[in-house]
C-alpha cells in the first residue's frame, strides 16, 4: 500500500513540475473551467428567479447539488482524466507496452500517472459552493454526516472512474473510443439534476440503470436530510459493482493487447 502511495506521490511531483513549466496553460485552463462552473450556477440562479422549487428542491438545495456534481467532476478530471485519455491513445499506438513493463498493478499505473492541477484547483471553488449553499440552508451536519458525505463523493468519483476505465478499455477491442468518451461527458449534465425530476423511461435509464444521477443526488441528500441507511448501502453496492466490472473488463482487454510493430 505504502509502495503505491510512494509511486503516486512521485506522479504528483512530476505533474506539479510539468504544470509549473506551462504556467500560462494552467492559468488559462483553470479560468476556462471556472467560467463553465459559473455558467452552470448562473443557470440555477436564473431559473430560481422565476420559480421557487424544481422537483421539490429549493434554490440552495439545488446549488448544493450542482456544487457536489462539480466537485465530483473536478476530482475525476483532476485525478484520472489525463491518464485515461492517454491510455486509449497508448493502446492504439502500442505505447501501452511501457505500463506492462512496470513493476506494479497495471490498471493503477496506467490510470493514475498524470494529474490535472487545473481540474483540482477548481475543486476548491466547487467545495466553496457546497459550503456556501449549506450555510444558506442553515444546515448543521454532524461530523458523521460530513465524513459520510466525503465518502459518498469518493464513491461517486470511483463509479465515474470505473465507467471511464470500461469505456477506455474498449480500445483493446475497437480502435477508436474517442466518440464514446466525449459522449460520456454529456452524461455529466444529468448529474446536475434532481432524481425526482425524472419520469417514466428516463427515470429507469438515467436514475437506475446508469449511475449518473444518483452519484450526485445521494451525497447531496445525505448532507441536506442526514444519513439514510438504504441509500448508503445501495450506493456502496453500486460502487463495488462498477469497480469490479471495470477491473474484469480491463484485464480481459489486456489479454487482447497485441502491441504495435516497431
Amino acid at each position, binding site marked *: 500500500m505504502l509502495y503505491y502511495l510512494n509511486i503516486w506521490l512521485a506522479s504528483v511531483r512530476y505533474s506539479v513540475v510539468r504544470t509549473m513549466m506551462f504556467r500560462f496553460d494552467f492559468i488559462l485552463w483553470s479560468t476556462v473551467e471556472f467560467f463553465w462552473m459559473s455558467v452552470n450556477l448562473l443557470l440555477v440562479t436564473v431559473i430560481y428567479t422565476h420559480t421557487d422549487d424544481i*422537483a421539490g428542491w429549493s434554490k440552495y438545495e439545488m446549488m448544493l447539488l450542482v456544487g457536489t456534481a462539480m466537485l465530483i467532476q473536478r476530482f475525476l478530471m483532476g485525478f484520472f482524466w489525463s491518464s485515461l485519455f492517454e491510455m486509449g491513445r497508448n493502446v492504439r499506438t502500442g505505447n501501452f507496452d511501457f505500463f506492462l513493463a512496470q513493476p506494479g498493478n497495471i490498471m493503477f499505473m496506467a490510470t493514475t500517472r498524470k494529474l490535472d492541477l487545473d481540474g483540482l484547483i477548481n475543486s476548491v471553488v466547487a467545495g466553496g459552493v457546497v459550503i456556501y449553499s449549506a450555510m444558506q440552508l442553515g444546515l448543521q451536519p454532524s461530523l458523521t454526516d460530513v465524513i459520510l458525505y466525503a465518502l459518498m463523493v469518493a464513491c461517486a468519483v470511483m463509479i465515474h472512474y470505473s465507467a471511464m476505465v470500461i469505456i477506455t478499455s474498449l480500445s483493446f477491442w475497437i480502435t477508436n473510443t474517442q*466518440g464514446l468518451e466525449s459522449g460520456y461527458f454529456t452524461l455529466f449534465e*444529468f448529474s446536475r439534476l434532481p432524481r425526482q*425530476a425524472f419520469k417514466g423511461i*428516463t427515470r429507469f435509464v438515467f436514475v437506475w440503470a446508469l449511475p449518473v444521477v444518483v452519484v450526485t443526488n445521494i451525497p447531496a441528500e445525505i448532507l441536506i436530510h442526514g444519513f439514510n441507511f438504504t441509500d448508503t448501502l445501495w450506493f456502496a453496492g453500486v460502487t463495488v459493482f462498477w469497480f469490479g466490472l471495470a477491473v474484469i473488463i480491463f484485464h480481459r482487454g489486456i489479454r487482447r493487447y497485441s502491441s504495435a510493430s516497431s
Partner: protein
Amino acid sequence: MLGTLNKYRHVFLVGLQSNIVYRWNFALRGFISLFHLIVVFTLWTAAYQGSTEIGGFNVQQTMTYFVMLLVLQFFIGAFNEDYEISEEIRNGLINQFLLKPINYFTYRFTIYIAARVVSGLLILVPLLIAFPFIKDYLTFPDELWRIALGLPSILLAGLIQFSIAYCFGMLTFWFLEIQGFVILSLALETLLGGQMFPLDLMPDWVFKISQCLPFYYQMYFPAAVLTGRIDQALAIQGLIVQIGWVVLLLGLNCFLWSRGLRRHTAVGG
C-alpha cells in the same frame, strides 16, 4: 462574376464530399445532442411544475425555443472551423492560397456552408425519431413577419458564427495554441448566445446589455424571432444591429488577415 461563382461552386462540391465522409461523426453528434435535449426537457418541465408561465412564456414555448436552438446549431453553428483554420495556418497550408486567385475567407466560408448543409440535414434524423415524444411540446407562432425576418437573421447569424470562428483561427498568426481561447469563448457564446437559458429570463438590464453584443445575434436572436419570444419592433431593431455586427466582424476578419500575413513565414517548397 460567373467565373468566380463557378470557382466557389467547385469548392462547395469538394466541401460537400469531404463532409459526407464524416456523416457518421455528425450523426453521432446529433444523437448525443438528444441527450442534451432530455436534460433540458427534464429540468424545465420540473421548473414549470409550480407555475404555468416563466418569464411570460409557457412550457411549450420554452421547449420550442430549445428545439429551435438545436436545429440552428447544426445548420449555422461553427463546429471546428476555428481549429481547421488554425491548422492550415500552422502547417503552412495557407501558402497555396497566397499564390492562387482565391480569397481565403470566401473559400473557408464556402466549405463551412457545405459542412452545415450536411450536419443540418443529419440532425433532422434524430429529431424525427424524437418527434413523437416532443410533438406535444412544440408550438410555433403563425405571424408571417417572423419568417420574413427570421430567415435573413439565420443567414446573418451564420455569418457572425463563422466570422467569430475565423477571427479565432487568425489568432494562430500570433499564438501557436488557440484551444484555450476557443473554449473560453465557447463558454461565453453558450451563455450570451442563449443556449443555457433564454436570454429574456435574465434581469432586464442584463438582457439589454446582451443585445449590444454579437453573441446575442449568433443564436438567440433568430431563435427568438422564429419562436415568438420577441416582438416585431425589437426584431426589426435587432436585424439592423445584426447587420452592423456582420459588417464589423467582416472588417475585423480582413484586418486580422492582412496583419497576420505580415507575421506569417512560408517555409519550404
